C-alpha cells in the first residue's frame, strides 16, 4: 500500500476522498517512523559491538604493546613475574570447545532425527520438553554436577587418564552436555520446517529414514543446522562458571587433552577481581582474544555455508 502511493500521493489523488488521503498520509508517516526505529535498533547493536571492541582494545593495549607477539607464544600466565602468555588459555579454550562440539553434534543430530522422524507421537512431546528444560538449566548447576559427580566418577574409573578427575577433557564433557540441548532444539525446529509433502514423496520412492534425512532434509535446512552448531560453539567458547569448576586451572602451557589447563573465560573469572595494572590490562587483552576467536569461528561458518551453496546442484 505504501509502495503504490509513495511519491505520487501529492499530485495524483486517484479519486480518493480527503479522509482516505489523510489516512494514507498517516500510514506513510507511521511506516517511516517504524522503519527509522527498527533501523535505529539495528544500528544500536553495531554501535554496542563497536564500543565494546574499542574499550577492550584501549584497555588491553598496554599489555599488547608491552609483550607484542610474546603475548601469544609465552608458555605461562605468571602474575608474580609479570609474564603473561595467552597460549595456555587459548589452547584450553579451543580444546575444550572442540571436544564439546565433537561429542555434541552427532548426539544432538541423532536426538533431533529421532524426534522428528522416528519418535512415536505420544513420546514426542515429553521428550522434546525435556530437551528444552535441559537447555534452561543454569550453568552453575552443571559446574556443581561436574565437580561433585563427573570428576570423581572419571577419577575412580579411569585413574591413569584422570588422576585428579578435573582437566580439559572433563571440561569438554561438561560443555558437551550443556550444548546438546541447544543444538538439539534448533536442529529439531529447522527439520520440522521441511514440508511433509517433500518428506513423504521421498519415503514413497522407497528411501530409508537415513536417506531421507541425509539427502532430502539436511540439504534443505543446512543453514539452520550450521546456525545451531555455531550457537552451541559460541556458548562453549564463552562458558565460564562450569568450566572454572572442572578445568583444573593450571596456568602453565601443557600440550595435553586430559590434563589440567585453563580457558580464557575461566582465567578471567579467577583473576579479574583482584587484578590491577599490567595484569588487568593483560586480562582485558585476553577478553579481546575471545572476541576475535568467536569472530573467526563465525566467519569460518559463513564461508562453509557459502561454499556448500555453490556446490549444491541448482
Amino acid at each position, binding site marked *: 500500500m505504501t509502495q503504490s502511493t509513495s511519491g505520487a500521493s501529492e499530485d495524483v489523488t486517484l479519486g480518493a476522498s480527503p479522509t482516505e488521503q489523510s489516512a494514507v498520509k498517516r500510514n506513510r508517516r507511521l511506516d517511516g517512523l517504524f522503519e527509522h526505529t527498527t533501523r535505529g535498533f539495528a544500528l544500536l547493536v553495531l554501535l554496542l559491538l563497536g564500543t565494546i571492541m574499542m574499550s577492550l582494545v584501549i584497555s588491553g593495549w598496554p599489555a599488547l604493546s608491552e609483550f607484542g607477539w610474546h603475548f601469544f607464544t609465552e608458555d605461562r600466565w605468571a602474575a608474580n*613475574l609479570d609474564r603473561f602468555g595467552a597460549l595456555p588459555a587459548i589452547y584450553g579454550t579451543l580444546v575444550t570447545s572442540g571436544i564439546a562440539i565433537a561429542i555434541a553434534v552427532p548426539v544432538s543430530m541423532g536426538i533431533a532425527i529421532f524426534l522428528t522422524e522416528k519418535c512415536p507421537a505420544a513420546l514426542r512431546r515429553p521428550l522434546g520438553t525435556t530437551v528444552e528444560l535441559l537447555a534452561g538449566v543454569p550453568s552453575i548447576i552443571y559446574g556443581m554436577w561436574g565437580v561433585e559427580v563427573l570428576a570423581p566418577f572419571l577419577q575412580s574409573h579411569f585413574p591413569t587418564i584422570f*588422576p585428579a578427575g578435573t582437566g580439559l577433557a572433563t571440561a569438554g564433557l561438561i560443555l558437551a552436555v550443556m550444548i546438546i540441548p541447544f543444538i538439539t532444539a534448533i536442529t529439531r525446529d529447522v527439520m520440522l520446517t521441511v514440508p511433509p509433502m517433500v518428506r513423504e514423496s521421498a519415503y514413497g520412492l522407497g528411501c530409508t529414514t537415513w536417506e531421507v534425512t541425509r539427502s532430502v532434509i539436511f540439504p534443505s535446512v543446512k543453514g539452520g543446522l550450521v546456525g545451531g552448531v555455531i550457537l552451541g560453539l559460541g556458548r562453549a567458547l564463552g562458558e565460564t562458571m562450569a568450566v*572454572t569448576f572442572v578445568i*583444573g586451572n*593450571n*596456568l602453565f602451557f601443557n600440550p595435553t587433552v586430559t590434563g589440567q589447563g585453563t580457558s580464557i573465560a575461566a582465567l578471567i573469572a*579467577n583473576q579479574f577481581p583482584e587484578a590491577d595494572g599490567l595484569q588487568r590490562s593483560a586480562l582485558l587483552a585476553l577478553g579481546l582474544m575471545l572476541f576475535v576467536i568467536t569472530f573467526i569461528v563465525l566467519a569460518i561458518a559463513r564461508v562453509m555455508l557459502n561454499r556448500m551453496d555453490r556446490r549444491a546442484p541448482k
Partner: protein
Amino acid sequence: MLKNVAATLVTSTLVLGSASAMAADTITGAGATFPYPVYSQWADAYQDATGVGLNYQAIGSGGGIKQITARTVTFGASDAPMKPSELKENNLVQWPQIMGGVVPVVNVPGIDGTKIKLDGETLAKIYMGEISNWNDDAIAKLNPDMDLPDTRITPVYRAEGSGTNFLFTHYLAQVSSDFANNVGEGKSVAWPAGVGAKANAGVANQVAGTPGGIGYVEYAYAHQNNLKVAQLENKSGNFVTAGIESFKAAASNADWKNADGLYLVLTDQPGGQSWPIVGASFILMHTDVQNPQAAKQALKFFDWAYKNGNDAATKLDYVPIPDNVSSMIRQDVWSQIKSQGGEQVWTK
C-alpha cells in the same frame, strides 16, 4: 496509578533508609581466607558483647588489597604484607592481627599421612612436577621405614590470588633456588604441574578426594576437614609436626619492633621446634579515612580482639599477637589513622 507509584517510592526510601541505618552497626571488611575461621569466631562473640556485627568477605588477599585501595570496605586483610613503599603510595597502614601456620596436607593411599616426612627441596620439586610419584627416591630417602605406593602425585594449589599462596611460594623460593628462578613467589603464580582449586576449602576438598593428592592449607582447614598433615624439616634440620607449639616457636622469632612498615614474613625461621611456614595476617586501613565513625568502630573491634580474642584464636591453632606488640600497634600505627580533617580516629 501515580499515587501508587509515589507510595511505593516513599516506602522503598524508608526501607532503604532503615537499611543504611542498620549498616552503621556493621563493620565491613574483605580479604584473606587464611584468618577467616578466627575472624568469624571473634565476630560472633563481638556481636554478642556489643551488638556490632562484622561483615567480612573472605575473597582472598589479592581481592582484599584491591577493595581497600578502592575504598569499598572499611578494612582490608592480607596474608602477604604490603611493602612500605606500596603502603605510602596508597595512604595505607598495616598491622598484624593474628599469626598462623600453612601446612602441607597429603592423601596417600594406605599410608598414615601424618607420618610422612618431607623437606623444602622435595616439596618444591613435587610442585614443579619433577617428582611425580609417591615412591620416588627423594621421598623414599626421607621416609626409609615406609612402604610408599606407586601412586601419581597430584599437587593441588590455589587458583586465585591468595596470601596462603604467597606464604607457601615464599617458603619454597627460600629453600629451593630452582623454584625461585622458575616459578617465583607471589600471590598468584603459574604452577608447572597440578590442579588449581578455589580457596582453602577448595584445596582441602580436592586433596581429600584425590588419592595421591598433596596440597597446602591454613592449619584450621586441615584440622576441620580431618586431613593428614605431613611433617616438614625446618631450618635446624629437625622434622616437626604442625600445631600451636611449633607455630609459636616460629612466631617467637618475630621482631616487629624493627620491621619497617611492619613488613615481616615468618617462613623458614631458626629454632629447633619452629614450623617452617608461619605467617601473620595483616589488616590494612587508610590513613585518611572518609568515614571516621566506621573506622573507629573497626579499630574498636580489633582492640577488643587483641584483648579478648586470644583464647578463641589459640583453640583454632592460631598464634595471638603478644601484648607488647599490640600496645605498640595501638600507639605507633593506629595513631596514623586520621579523618580527612586531620583528626585522630583512635583515641584511648
